[in-house]
């Protein structure tokens, strides 16, 4: 759980966009661990069928987490992709710099399309 908090902390506080992604990952693993813990059954074995008499760990949360991990990595991947694009467009991935740039851009020309990212010929 502490990990979850740490991850959240990173996501909110860190200025670097990649760091935020890392934080997000961290937070997610916190949640995953929580699920795994709920699946824990004392003195049990992994849920691989070896007979009816054995006590198994709860398989359901594990299934959920399998799914969640994959979902999480997809999000991470996309976030990183975005970071790369942001870097291409702005030349920085620091939040403070970015907000400064955006601000400056808005003041200079309220509604200008930036040529760099307009969907022209690829």
């Amino acid at each position, binding site marked *: *759980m*502490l*990990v979850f*908090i*740490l991850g*959240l902390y*990173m996501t*909110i*506080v*860190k*200025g*670097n966009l*990649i*760091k935020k992604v*890392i*934080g997000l*990952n*961290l937070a997610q*693993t916190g949640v*995953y*661990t929580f699920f*795994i*813990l*709920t699946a*824990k*059954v*004392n003195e*049990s074995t*992994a*849920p*691989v*069928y070896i007979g009816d008499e054995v006590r*198994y760990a709860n*398989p*359901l949360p*594990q*299934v*959920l987490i*399998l*799914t969640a*991990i*994959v*979902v999480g*990595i*997809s*999000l991470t*991947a*996309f976030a*990183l*992709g975005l*970071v790369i*694009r942001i870097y*291409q467009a702005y030349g920085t*991935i*620091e*939040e403070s*710099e970015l907000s400064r740039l955006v601000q400056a851009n808005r003041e200079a020309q309220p509604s200008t399309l930036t040529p760099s*990212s307009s*969907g022209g010929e*690829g």
Partner: protein
Amino acid sequence: MWIDLTLLGLLLALALGITFSRDTLTGSLLLGAYSLILAMLWVDLNAADVALTEAAIGAGVATPLMLLAISRSTRAELGEVLMTVQRYRRFPPFLVLGLVAGALVYASLDMPPLGNPNNPANQHVAPYYVQNAYHETGSENIVTAILVCYRGFDTLGEVLVVMTAGVAMMLILRRS
């Protein structure tokens, strides 16, 4: 038991290291290590399949992705941004985090005890899977059975999420 504790300790140390690391490269490498340790912990918690996935994806996919992203953008970090800004901006995040942490602790006070086979979580649906999965699906691995059969649609969704991510990457990265 001591294995658990050691792993937990390691995890915490790594997490702290990630959080307070000064640059993104270190952070992402540590995250890879963290994933591996986490996977070990999960194995110990009888979640072998999940651990395998985490090791493969958390350490094996995420870290290279991070590295790729860093190599395509920049490694340098400006340092702790919020440390330099005014005090008042630091307050709200901490408040939120404090509240969330408080809620977590508050909830944990009357949670069902960890690992007790008589927990509702382990009593309602789960035993059905344990008893019937093998017979109904023929898969020895109950996790696989649930994944593919009982909750197959979740898995389809999961695949779709991956596909979405792929599509999304194509969309945003292939334009310029």
